[in-house]
């Protein structure tokens, strides 16, 4: 019997190695696997390359850093690949002080590089970013009269995903804008670990409504995480 449910965070995080590339889903706080991030902080893997939409928030005396900014603060992130990082943020400080490398890529290119990895496409040409700073070091070619640049697929050793509902095969649904990067990151992770708000019996999720089929999923942990929060 296939059963991808794991019963503990330790089991969910088991085997994540130092130097791993970790795909971290979510946009804002919505669809972000915060419990798994806490688990990764606890688990101890270091020298990580993190792929996420954004570098996260500024330091605040009232709210200790959590999640990705906390992982960065702990010095566990060697490199951040993202579409957005503020100078005035925990990530921005780490970049400025030379404690972390950063690669900032256009958001659509980021999503497509991850999708390509999951779909077995090693590289693709895109018009996004041509003739800008992000084109530096990229091969450029003209297609249909437009300059395009070569972008490499971006696979993960690990993907951390948040679902709304999951069954024991790892079939997943998402809620509203909580879908965001989750389906493509689930495809692109060699080891895809899911935290889900709800669990259900096999057969309960209508086949027409499953967004991520279990073939892309390795482990599922049930976490009653509650509603996403607004930025502090």
């Amino acid at each position: 019997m296939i059963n991808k449910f794991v019963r503990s965070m330790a089991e969910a995080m088991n085997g994540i190695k130092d130097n791993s590339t970790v795909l971290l889903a979510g946009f804002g706080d919505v669809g972000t696997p915060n419990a798994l991030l806490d688990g990764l902080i606890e688990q101890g893997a270091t020298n990580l390359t993190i792929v996420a939409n954004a570098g996260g928030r500024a330091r605040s005396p009232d709210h200790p850093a959590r999640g990705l900014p906390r992982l960065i603060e702990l010095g566990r992130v060697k490199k951040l690949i993202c579409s957005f990082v503020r100078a005035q943020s925990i990530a921005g400080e780490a970049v400025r002080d030379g404690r972390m490398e950063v690669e900032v890529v256009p958001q659509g290119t980021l999503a497509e590089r991850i999708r390509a990895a999951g779909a077995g496409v090693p590289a693709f040409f895109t018009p996004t970013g041509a003739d800008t700073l992000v084109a530096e070091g990229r091969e450029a070619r003209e297609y249909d009269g437009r300059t395009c640049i070569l972008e490499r697929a971006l696979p993960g050793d690990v993907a951390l995903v948040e679902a709304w509902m999951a069954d024991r095969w790892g079939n997943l649904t998402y809620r509203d804008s909580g879908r965001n990067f989750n389906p493509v990151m689930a495809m692109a992770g060699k080891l895809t670990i899911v935290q889900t708000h709800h669990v259900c019996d096999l057969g309960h999720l209508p086949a027409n409504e499953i967004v991520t089929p279990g073939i892309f999923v390795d482990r599922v942990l049930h976490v009653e995480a509650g509603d996403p929060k607004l930025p502090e």
Partner: protein
Amino acid sequence: MNETAHAFRPLGRAGMAARAAQDIPEGWYVNLGIGIPSLIADHVPADREVVFHSENGILGMGPAPEKHRENPWLINASTQRVSLRTGGSYVHHADSFGIVRGGHLDLCVLGGFQVAENGDLANWAQSASEAGRQIGGAMDLAVGAKRVWVTMEHTTKHGHARILKQCSYPLTAKHCVSRIYTNLAVLEVTPKGFVVIDIIPGLSFDELQARTEAVLHRA
């Protein structure tokens, strides 16, 4: 020059948004960027069906809900809570940018730091060396939408021109902007350069030109 004889009132942020909203027809699929562009949706009459897209995977985005109807699972690309109109749908991030890059949006309205007379846009950094790089989805939107409009103040806070012969800040994309809505005027980017298609009451063409580095042409 006697300023009182030339009294004019620059548009505020809401005024710029309202002016741009006038030119968005029913049936268009539209993405609105952060800042002034995000205010445009409030100025499209409810009976004019315009479908708003948000980069994080929403088509048919509606306005901010009343407090008691807020849905914490539904935020826009600026991470503000929003609503979904009847007929709206969700897609994942790669499909959302397929919508963008694939040329499916009729219009994207972006904020800007600088626009050049050839349509070049700079809107994500004021120097190449910043520790912060806030690109987000702007480069994809700038190359992908069928039309790119920019809403921004005509000059900087210090009175420096932002409508230029050539951008000095890092580019978002080349040759992408077709129209600019500022607090003083509406400009069209054409092969011969900027053409003034609207100007606020009380401001003359020459006064507008004095606040613009690039050469302006009369419509």
